[in-house]
């Protein structure tokens, strides 16, 4: 970690490079996000459900593209030797990737989630769905951390896509689970958001899981001996 801190200038260069490479696609996704928020803002049951599905898809696609394009493709398309020929250690590179991916994903994720909350609060949509929206968004973030970790540790398209498929399949189960929990589903149509012990516990578990995955990735990355 010491060398990583000492090499902060290079890490900044690598993060800025990823931003330069991905800014156009992120802008396109944000535009799609604004359109989706507009649909959600129509505040009918049908438009809300359509927009919710579109938003879930969008959040998954942004994460998948970010991990595949900036990490897996760097190895697959052999730009990795070019980057590793620069004054960086493989650990600096992995740290920069972690940082750039978190920024490039977390910022759009946060903007879109906050956008949804603003729409819900400012339209006749039941505010009771807020915990559901936040929990599903937090699950998608945790799933993203899983395939980001897989990409960073294996640089393998196959493994990363497998983790994406599994986490996305589990998303359906997760949504069904929380929709069926009486502590949660009884408050969906309430006028105000209602957080209880169960919803807070699930949220805390998802946040802890995401942080643990990222920490573990950092530890395991240091043990890698071959980087090409």
């Amino acid at each position: 970690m010491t060398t990583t801190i000492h090499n902060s200038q290079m890490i900044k260069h690598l993060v800025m490079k990823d931003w330069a490479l991905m800014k156009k696609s992120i802008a396109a996704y944000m535009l799609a996000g604004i359109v989706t928020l507009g649909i959600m803002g129509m505040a009918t049951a049908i438009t809300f459900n359509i927009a919710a599905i579109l938003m879930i898809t969008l959040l998954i696609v942004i994460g998948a593209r970010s991990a595949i394009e900036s990490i897996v493709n760097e190895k697959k398309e052999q730009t990795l030797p070019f980057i590793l020929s620069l004054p960086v250690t493989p650990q600096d590179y992995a740290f920069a990737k972690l940082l750039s991916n978190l920024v490039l994903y977390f910022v759009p994720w946060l903007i879109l989630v906050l956008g949804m909350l603003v729409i819900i609060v400012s339209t006749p949509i039941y505010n009771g769905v807020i915990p559901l929206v936040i929990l599903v968004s937090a699950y998608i973030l945790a799933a993203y951390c899983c395939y980001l970790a897989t990409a960073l540790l294996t640089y393998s398209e196959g493994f990363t896509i497998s983790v994406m498929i599994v986490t996305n399949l589990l998303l359906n189960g997760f949504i069904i689970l929380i929709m069926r929990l009486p502590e949660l589903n009884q408050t969906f149509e309430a006028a105000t958001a209602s957080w209880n012990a169960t919803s807070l516990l699930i949220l805390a578990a998802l946040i802890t899981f995401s942080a643990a995955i990222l920490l573990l990735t950092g530890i395991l990355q240091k043990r890698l001996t071959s980087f090409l």
Partner: protein
Amino acid sequence: MQNYAFEMRDVSIRYPHFSMENLNLSLLQGQVMGLVGVNGAGKSTTIRILMGLVKANAGEVKALGYDLPSQQVQAKYDIGFASDDMRLYKSQTLQWHMDFVQSIYPKFDSAYAKDLLKRFDLIADQKIKGISHGQRVKACLLLVLARRPKLLVLDEPTTGLDPVAREEVISELADILRDDERSVLFSSHNTHDIEKLSDQIAFLDKGKLLALQDKESYLESWGRFRCQVKDTASQSVVGAVSIIRHGQIAEVVTDQWSEGYAKQLQEAGFSVLEQHRMSLEEIFVANVKRSR
């Protein structure tokens, strides 16, 4: 005291189907070393260890006085590395790459980069996805050379190039090598390129260093003799790497060539009909065959 561009001492690495044991390789500053070997000989592994991209299981590696891989960040400011499997970002232009590299290397020489653009017939504003393999190799070399590195490490730089592009790359490298301060390690299985550029030659095969010698004395030490074999001829001759018999005619290859070697053959019952010096390619093949 001798200044080494790089030193590898007792370096070992083990993979399931490949191992390299106790490799010792060093290059004096200002020298050019050609690393020769067949595919899978360990050339790329050696270079990757030197660049800190692969961690050796044992041994000590230093480049430009820096311990590797621990001080690779400092070392890489003065090492230029390019390999045949290196690609640039397809969606970006060469100019974008030049700007990116320039933002990292304070010594990046823009005037030299522009000069190389002309010499390599490259277009700065062209996207990488639109350029040929040869142009891509030249673009990678431009990005490396314009950094003005003290040590240049090139892994198969001419692989897959057409003859014209290869000649352009080789002549540019030859130009660079006039700088006495710059050291170069380059690997290739193309012995013609190695013969043209190197001061020193290192032969690798199956992870073992078969030979490490300066090019001139190395080429001078090898020779081939076509001989008439007498009935009394012995089965082996001192210094012979191989003796291939076709009836009464034998071809003797030696790595101890001297004015007196023909006499030595004569005494062993081989009447010399012809003698030839060997090209690096012929030496390479003979050396690999001997080691197997």
